[in-house]
C-alpha cells in the first residue's frame, strides 16, 4: 500500500509530495489522526506545553470525519512547513497515540518514522478517496467529512481541572467575581485596609436557553496579601480567578486543560474570558471591564448622611481655661528625642558625652540655660541616663517619657496656642509654667562644647641630624688569632714609597698651617 522513500528519490506518486532540504518526503500539509476527543485534548495540551501550539494556530483545523464503518474520528490539519516542525508534531502525536500523515488535497501518506527515515510514498492511490484518504502501512482508508470543530469553542467548553494547593498560592494578580449583594461590603473592607485593588461591574448572559443577564462585581487585586486571598476564598458568593495569559483568567486553584497562554490569538484583544470551575462554563466579557480604584468607589457609594443646611457657625471665641497638665501615660513610649538635664549634672554629662561613639556624639546638640541643659538628639538622646528623657510628639513639641498631655490636644494645636516662634523647640515640663521654648539656634553640636580653649605649643623645628636617614654602621668583629701577626694579609712585604700630595681642580692648598707646639 505504501513504500519507503529512497534517498535522493525525486518522483512520488502521492500528489504534492516532494523532498525537502533533508531529502524527507513532505507534502504541504500535515494531518494528525486522533481516535477520540480525549486524545485530541491531550494532544493540544501536550503541544501547548511543548510550545508548538501557538505556531500551529494560524493554520490549524480540527475536522470530525466518518470512516467507511461510520466511526467518528478527529483529524487535526496543519501546515507542514518543514520536516523539523513535522518531527516535533509526530513526537507529540506518538505520545498520545495519534498518527501523523503528510500530503495535500485528499491524499495523505504516513509521515516518516524510524523504519523509513525519508518517509513513505503511496504505492497505489485509492479509487474513491472520498473527502480524505489516509495511507498507512497497516491500512488505506477513505474518510468522509462530518463537521468542523472550532478550537475556540473547544476551549470554552472545557472545564478547568483542580491543581494541587501548593502550586496555586500567592498569585501576582487576583480577580474576584463578587455577587452584587456582597460588593459593597467587600469593596469597603478592601478600601479600609488600603489594599491596592480596582473594581468594575460586569454583566453577561447566562447562555444556553436562558435569556437572564447576570451581574456581578469584578475586583482586580495586585499582589494581594495571603490573608486577603484566604479571606476572599472563604467567602460564599466570591469566586477568585488568576490570569492565564493576557486575555483569560481561570478560577483560583484550577487550571485549564490546554495552556491558554499559547492560545491568546483565539481571543480578542479586548476580550476577557473567565473560566469557572465546577462545570459552570466560561464567562466571555466582550470588552475589558473599566476598573476603578476601590477607594473612589467607597467614597461614592458610601451612605453619607444628608447634608444639613441652614446651620449657623460661630468662631471659637470662648475657652474652657483648663490647665495644661502631664498625666501618666498608658500608651507605649514613642521615640526619645531629647533630654533635660539639671545644670548641676554638667560635669557628669560631659564625661558621659566624652565616651560616646563618634557617630552618636555627632548627632547630639545641646543648649544651656541658667537652670538646665537641653539635649536634643533624635537617635542618641536615649543613651544619656541623666535628667528627664523627652519623646517627640511632632512639630518640635516634646513631652516627658511616660507622660501624656491633659487635655490631650495635638502637638500642632499646642504649638499654635503657645504662640512660640516657629523655630523653637517646645518642652512640656509640667511646671508652673508648663511650656519651655528653646530656639533651635541655641542648640550647638555637643562636639563643639566638650573642650575649652586648647593651649597649643608650637614646637621649634631644628635641622635633622646628620646621617639620620642612613643605617648605622655596626662592627661585626672576628678577633685576631694567635698568629695574626704572622698570618694576616700584608704582614710581610715592603711598604711602597710615600705618596705625592693630592691636587684636584677645585681644591686649593691650605695656607696658614702651623704647629701649635711651634714645630
Amino acid at each position, binding site marked *: 500500500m505504501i513504500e519507503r522513500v529512497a534517498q535522493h528519490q525525486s518522483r512520488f506518486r502521492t500528489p504534492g509530495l516532494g523532498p525537502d532540504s533533508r531529502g524527507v518526503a513532505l507534502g504541504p500539509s500535515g494531518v494528525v489522526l486522533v481516535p477520540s476527543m480525549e486524545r485530541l485534548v491531550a494532544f493540544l495540551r501536550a503541544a501547548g506545553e511543548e510550545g508548538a501550539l501557538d505556531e500551529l494556530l494560524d493554520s490549524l483545523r480540527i475536522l470530525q470525519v466518518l470512516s467507511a464503518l461510520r466511526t467518528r474520528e478527529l483529524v487535526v490539519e496543519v501546515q507542514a512547513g518543514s520536516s523539523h516542525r513535522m518531527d516535533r508534531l509526530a513526537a507529540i502525536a506518538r505520545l498520545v497515540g495519534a498518527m501523523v500523515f503528510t500530503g495535500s488535497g485528499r491524499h495523505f501518506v504516513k509521515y516518516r518514522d524510524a523504519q523509513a527515515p525519508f518517509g513513505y510514498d503511496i504505492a497505489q492511490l485509492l479509487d474513491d478517496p472520498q473527502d480524505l484518504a489516509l495511507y498507512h502501512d497497516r491500512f488505506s482508508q477513505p474518510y468522509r467529512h462530518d463537521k468542523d470543530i472550532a478550537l475556540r469553542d473547544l476551549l470554552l467548553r472545557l472545564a478547568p481541572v483542580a491543581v494541587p494547593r501548593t502550586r496555586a498560592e500567592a498569585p501576582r494578580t487576583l480577580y474576584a467575581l463578587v455577587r452584587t449583594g456582597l460588593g459593597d461590603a467587600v469593596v469597603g473592607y478592601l478600601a479600609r485596609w488600603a489594599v491596592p485593588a480596582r473594581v468594575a461591574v460586569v454583566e453577561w448572559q447566562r447562555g444556553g436557553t436562558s435569556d437572564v443577564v447576570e451581574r456581578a462585581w469584578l475586583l482586580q487585586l495586585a499582589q494581594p496579601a495571603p490573608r486577603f486571598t484566604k479571606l476572599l476564598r472563604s467567602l460564599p458568593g466570591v469566586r477568585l480567578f488568576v490570569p492565564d495569559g493576557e486575555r483569560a483568567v481561570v478560577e483560583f486553584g484550577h487550571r485549564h486543560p490546554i495552556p491558554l497562554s499559547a492560545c491568546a490569538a483565539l481571543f480578542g484583544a479586548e476580550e476577557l474570558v473567565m473560566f469557572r470551575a465546577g462545570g459552570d462554563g466560561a464567562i466571555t466579557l466582550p470588552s475589558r471591564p473599566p476598573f476603578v480604584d476601590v477607594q473612589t468607589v467607597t467614597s461614592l457609594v458610601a451612605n453619607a448622611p444628608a447634608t444639613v443646611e441652614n446651620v449657623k457657625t460661630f468662631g471659637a471665641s470662648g475657652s474652657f481655661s483648663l490647665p495644661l497638665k502631664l498625666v501618666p501615660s498608658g500608651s507605649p513610649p514613642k521615640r526619645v528625642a531629647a533630654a533635660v538635664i539639671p545644670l548641676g549634672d554638667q560635669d557628669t554629662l560631659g564625661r558621659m558625652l566624652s565616651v560616646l561613639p563618634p557617630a552618636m556624639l555627632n548627632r547630639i546638640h545641646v543648649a544651656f540655660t541658667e537652670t538646665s541643659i537641653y539635649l536634643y538628639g533624635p537617635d542618641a538622646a536615649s543613651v544619656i541616663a541623666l535628667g528627664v528623657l523627652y519623646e517627640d510628639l511632632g512639630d518640635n513639641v516634646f513631652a516627658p517619657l511616660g507622660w501624656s498631655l491633659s487635655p490631650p490636644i495635638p502637638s500642632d494645636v499646642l504649638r499654635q496656642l503657645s504662640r512660640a516662634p516657629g523655630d523653637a523647640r517646645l518642652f512640656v515640663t509640667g511646671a508652673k509654667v508648663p511650656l519651655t521654648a528653646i530656639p533651635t539656634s541655641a542648640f550647638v553640636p555637643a562636639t563643639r562644647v566638650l573642650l575649652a580653649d586648647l593651649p597649643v605649643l*608650637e614646637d*621649634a623645628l631644628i*635641622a635633622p*641630624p*646628620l*646621617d639620620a636617614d*642612613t*643605617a*648605622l*654602621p*655596626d*662592627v*661585626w*668583629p*672576628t*678577633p*685576631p*688569632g*694567635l698568629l*695574626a*701577626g704572622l698570618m*694576616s*694579609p*700584608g*704582614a*710581610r*712585604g*715592603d*711598604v*711602597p714609597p*710615600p*705618596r705625592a*700630595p*693630592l*691636587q*684636584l681642580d*677645585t*681644591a*686649593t*692648598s*691650605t*695656607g*696658614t*698651617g*702651623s*704647629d*701649635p*707646639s*711651634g*714645630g
Partner: protein
Amino acid sequence: MADYGSFHQFLTRFVTPLVAGGRVEVDGLIGPGVLAGWIRPVDLDATAVAWVHDAARLRLAKVGPIGHADHLPPDILALAAVWHNLVAMTHPDVRGKMSLRRKVRQWCAAFLEWAGVPFSRADVSLRHGILGRLAQLGRVDTHVTFWAGYADFLGVAPPASLVALPRIRRVSEEKTRVGFIELLLGLDAPDLDDDSADLVGVARAALALSPLTDLSLADRPKPFTFAWTSPALNALGDEALRGAAARILLGRGAAALRAVEQATLAAVRAECLPAAAQLLLRFHLELAVFEGMSAARAAEAPRGGQPSSGASPLPSQPVAWDAYTRLGSERVAALVGLPAELVARALPIDPNRATPKEPPSAPLLARAGALETRT
C-alpha cells in the same frame, strides 16, 4: 677566610658599610704590606668605588661646599686600615695580648706614616667623607638567656639554633649597642707600662690625620680628649674647611663647643704660635657669630622666648663670648668678614653686664695680639 687584604674585599666589607651603614666586617688584622697591592689594585670594581663616592659626596654635601669626592686615594684606605686594626683590638679576647698590641702599633704607625698629613682641602674633605661616620660606628652585643643558661655574643648575631623555639626554650635576647668611644676606651690598658704596646696614642694620631673627623668627635672623654693638632690648624686656615668645621661643631652641640674652647686654651697655654692663636680666635668668633645668628632666628620666631638681657647668649662658648664683648661687634665683624650690623644684631651686648674678674679669653687675646677694649 677570604683574602681580606685585597682591595675589593676591604672596600666592600669594611669601607663601604662604614660609609653607607650596615655590617662592618672586622676580620683579624691587616698589615702594611697590602699597600703595594692597593696602589694599583688588580680587582678594582668601579661600581663598588662609585658607591663609596656617592655616599661620601652626600656626607660632604651636608657640611658645606668643601670639594668633591670622585676618586678613592690609597692614603684614605691606609687610614681606614688603621681604624680596622684598632677596632679589631677592641675585642676583649685580645685585650691582654701584648705581642699582638705591639705588632698592631707597629703596623698602624707604618700605615699612618705612609698616609701622612692631609696636604690640601681635597685631602681633608675626602678623608672626612670616608671616615666621617666613625662617630656612629658601634658594636651590637647580644646577651641570650635560655632554659639551660646564657651566652654572650660580641658584635656577631647568635646562631639560629640557639634562639630557635623561643617560647618553648624560654629564649630571651637583650641587645646592647656599644658606641665608638666606648669601643676606643677598650684600647686603653691602665696597668700597661710598655709604651710600645700603647694603642691610645695610635688612635689619637689616626684621628688627627682626618681633621674634620677629629673635630666631629671633639666631645670625647679622656684619654682621647680633643686637642688641636697641626693638621687641624692647617685645615682651619682654609675658609671652606673652617666653615665646614663650624657647621660640624654647631651640629654636635654645646659639649663639643666647650671641648674645642678648652683645647684652644690648652694650646694657648702651651704657647702656640701667635698666627695659630689668631686663627683660633677668628674661628671661635665665627662660631660665636654663627651660633648667635641661630639663636636670634629662634628668638624672632612667634611664641618663642625672649633672650634675657643679663645672661650670656652663648653659654656654650664662654671664651668666644668674652672675647667678643672685649673686642666689640665692629672689630669682630671686620675680623670675621661680616657686616657689623648683622653681628651686633646676632650678638647684642648688654652694657650693664658684670665684668668677670678673670676673663676666660684673656690668654687667647693676649697670644693673638688683640688689644682688649671695653664697650
